[in-house]
């Protein structure tokens, strides 16, 4: 670099709030927006949690609760799935962590366009309102399953086929607008507004995960947007994009010539990258958690970065492995099975590197660390079953059974949620200045972790014996139709475990609220972490984050336990001639 560039962020004009409304509601501060995203996503996530109770009660004790009608059951599974994947996981990992961490970890004052960032949250909020409006429109929310496959999604007989599906699709389209506004901000900030010395290869892995996930989001959400528009047209004005000639309830409908497979392709062209939109930020964050709490640099940083990039690229060429039984072109199976197995390679590299990071490390079993380790274990379990399902011949009998449910809940449901929990325990001290209660945290962890296995391990078995997914009733005339009676016992066990684990999440919310007022003061850097967000002049950071001058970065984010150094960590902004006697790049 011949001439030094001036970070434009240094004298960026910030819109300082004057009233309560502009400070906490229409705020342009990325940290406030992050908390807004977090609270909204968590609230809507609790709704989805309660919905999962409803469906578990029906599956575990069929007939015992007569208020759970088939309609309510199908509406619950649909809303549970969609809320968890889009409105909780995507919004939390990118909307909340992305907003909070990107400027702080990069040494920026704010996102490049704070106003757009503010609008992004409010549009997201609007999409949540539209989604929840499903419950007040005639017919209630859609019961088509979170994949919303036509033709059934818009045919009479499916719950919410008149209004519920429209509010769902509209809400998704609005969400995509919100995500686009936020995502453009994250990418531009990461690529164009880092501080001095912060090269891409010095960024914490959290930022790499968020960057790649945002790129995937901006390129994959368009497919969902397009399919939502086309399905709205099919439902509303009777076009036949996805609707073939159908005889429904004895009536020949006016549709003809549409292609339901087209929807599935578009949906999964979005849907598979979506899995990595959720997974990649989790990968990144967990790398940082593991490194900080084991006081050791992350093993193979460069390999971790390239693995993230490779997963991102490959995620666009694997989508049809969700469609092996759909009746698509028979040659596709081979191609997509191959690419699916190839994507396991960079993923496995990451798992090995996490494990080797822990090898002979000074591990501190703090609550965030427990969640991080639990993530690695859970992700391995869920990932391995993915190898089964990625092979056509194994997938065909397992398709649409509880094996699939177990697989994706392990790998992209529970695993990222564990990271979210770990990350909240990790960064809560920075956000509020107070620590979360440790005892409650330990309880929360152990119940969630063990409960997860009680819930999802038996589901693999249920899948093998052929229990189908999404059925309202698995018994005919009081007797199991297709599988041993032991399955019913397992289902009861799972339901009870799910109720207990779910209840403990409310305890976590209690912890969040109480610790905000009564938690013990955290200080600037309770975990001894190196990345920039722990180096702000104030805790919690004020609007604008840094003092007069942005920090200058001299090293990567993983200088832990450097031999000869006074402390066991060297923050990123400590220059080399002042690094406690150690020489590291």
């Amino acid at each position, binding site marked *: 670099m011949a001439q030094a560039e001036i*970070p434009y962020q240094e004298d960026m004009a910030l819109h300082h709030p004057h009233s309560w409304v502009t400070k906490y509601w229409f705020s342009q501060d990325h940290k406030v927006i992050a908390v807004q995203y977090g609270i909204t996503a968590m609230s809507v996530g609790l709704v989805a949690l309660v919905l999962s109770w409803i469906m578990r009660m029906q599956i575990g004790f069929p007939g015992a609760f007569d208020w759970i009608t088939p309609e309510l059951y199908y509406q619950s599974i649909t809303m549970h799935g969609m809320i968890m994947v889009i409105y909780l996981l995507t919004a939390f990992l990118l909307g909340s962590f992305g907003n909070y961490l990107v400027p702080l970890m990069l040494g920026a004052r704010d996102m490049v*366009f704070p106003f757009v960032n503010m609008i992004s949250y409010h549009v997201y909020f609007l999409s949540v309102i539209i989604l929840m409006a499903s419950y007040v429109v005639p017919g209630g929310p859609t019961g088509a399953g979170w994949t919303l496959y036509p033709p059934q999604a818009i045919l009479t007989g499916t719950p919410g086929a008149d209004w519920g599906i429209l509010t769902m699709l509209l809400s998704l389209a609005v969400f995509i607008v919100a995500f686009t506004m936020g995502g453009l901000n994250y990418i*531009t900030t990461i690529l164009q507004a*880092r501080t*001095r010395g912060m*090269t891409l290869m010095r960024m914490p892995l959290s930022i790499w995960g968020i960057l790649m996930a945002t790129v995937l989001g901006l*390129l994959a959400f368009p497919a969902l947007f397009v399919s939502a528009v086309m399905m709205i047209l099919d439902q509303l004005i009777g*076009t036949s994009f996805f609707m073939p000639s159908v005889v429904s309830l004895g009536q020949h409908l006016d549709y003809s010539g549409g292609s339901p497979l087209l929807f599935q392709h578009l949906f999964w062209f979005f849907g598979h990258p979506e899995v990595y939109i959720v997974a990649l930020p989790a990968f990144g964050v967990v790398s940082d958690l593991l490194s900080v709490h084991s006081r050791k640099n992350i093993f193979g940083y460069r390999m971790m970065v390239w693995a993230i990039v490779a997963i991102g690229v490959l995620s666009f060429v694997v989508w049809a492995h969700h469609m092996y039984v759909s009746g698509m072109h028979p040659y596709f199976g081979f191609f997509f099975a191959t690419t699916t197995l190839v994507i396991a390679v960079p993923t496995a590299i990451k798992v090995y590197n996490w494990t080797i990071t822990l090898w002979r490390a000074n591990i501190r079993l703090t609550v965030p660390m427990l969640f991080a380790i639990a993530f690695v274990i859970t992700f391995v379990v869920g990932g391995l079953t993915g190898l089964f399902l990625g092979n056509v011949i194994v997938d065909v009998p397992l398709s649409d059974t509880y094996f699939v449910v177990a697989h994706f809940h392990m790998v992209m449901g529970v695993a990222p949620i564990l990271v979210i929990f770990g990350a909240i325990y990790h960064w809560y001290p920075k956000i509020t200045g107070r620590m979360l209660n440790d005892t409650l945290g330990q309880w929360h962890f152990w119940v969630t972790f063990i409960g997860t296995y009680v819930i999802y391990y038996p589901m693999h078995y249920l899948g093998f014996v052929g229990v189908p997914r999404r059925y309202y009733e698995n018994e005919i005339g009081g007797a199991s139709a297709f599988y041993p009676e032991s399955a019913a016992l397992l289902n009861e066990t799972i339901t009870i475990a799910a109720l207990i684990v779910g209840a403990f999440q409310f305890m976590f919310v209690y912890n969040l609220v109480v610790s905000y007022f009564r938690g013990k003061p955290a200080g600037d850097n309770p975990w001894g972490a190196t990345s920039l967000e722990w180096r702000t002049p104030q805790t919690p950071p004020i609007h604008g984050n840094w003092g007069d001058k942005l920090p200058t970065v001299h090293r990567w984010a993983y200088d832990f336990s450097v031999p000869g150094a006074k402390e066991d960590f060297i923050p990123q902004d400590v220059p080399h001639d002042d690094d406690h006697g150690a020489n590291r790049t």
Partner: protein
Amino acid sequence: MAGATGGHAAIIQDWSSDITVFKGVPWGKAMMWIFLLSDTFIFTCFLTGYMTVRMTTAQPWPSPSDVFALEAFGYPVPLLLIAIMTMILITSSGTMAMAVNMGYQKRKKEAIILILVTAAFGASFVGMQVFEWSKLILEEGIRPWENSMGAPQFGAVFFMVTGFHGLHVSAGVVYLLFIAWLIHKGRYDNTNFEIIEILGLYWHFVDLVWVFIFAFFYLW
């Protein structure tokens, strides 16, 4: 006419530097480019959907060159209106490029006039589209859900794709007018007028999409 600045060797240099990856690219321009990339995916997905329904339909697909023919001097000229619309959009792209150039020369008045001319061309494009739609709906009897000439998807795809493009053009006209007003107000006097280039990126993109729609929808 120099090639890309920096050459290939600069790729690694740029990506491994601090502060910015895209050297000399203002935030707004980077953001607009990335947005257009995302928008490219939206339009390609629309066109992929169109390709799929057209290739899978077992019913005849009406010939666009006849459906969109207009009578001139007593003869039906295929795609006459479409050809005129194409020319208008290209013309507007040219005036937009000039506006960007004037902006960088700090010739504010010329820039504003050229932006307004661009907006006028854009508005006339939308006007012709309205004419085209109404002719199709009222005279030819084509509806999104049915089509007396064959595959019902013909109308559906046509209204959806051109409608979505038309929305982009309309939004572009509003954007052009808004920025012209801001420039007139002196909002950008202390800048290099990159805003006009950002505006131009969007407008050229709309033209670019039309190139693909013209080839795939009207000429196929």
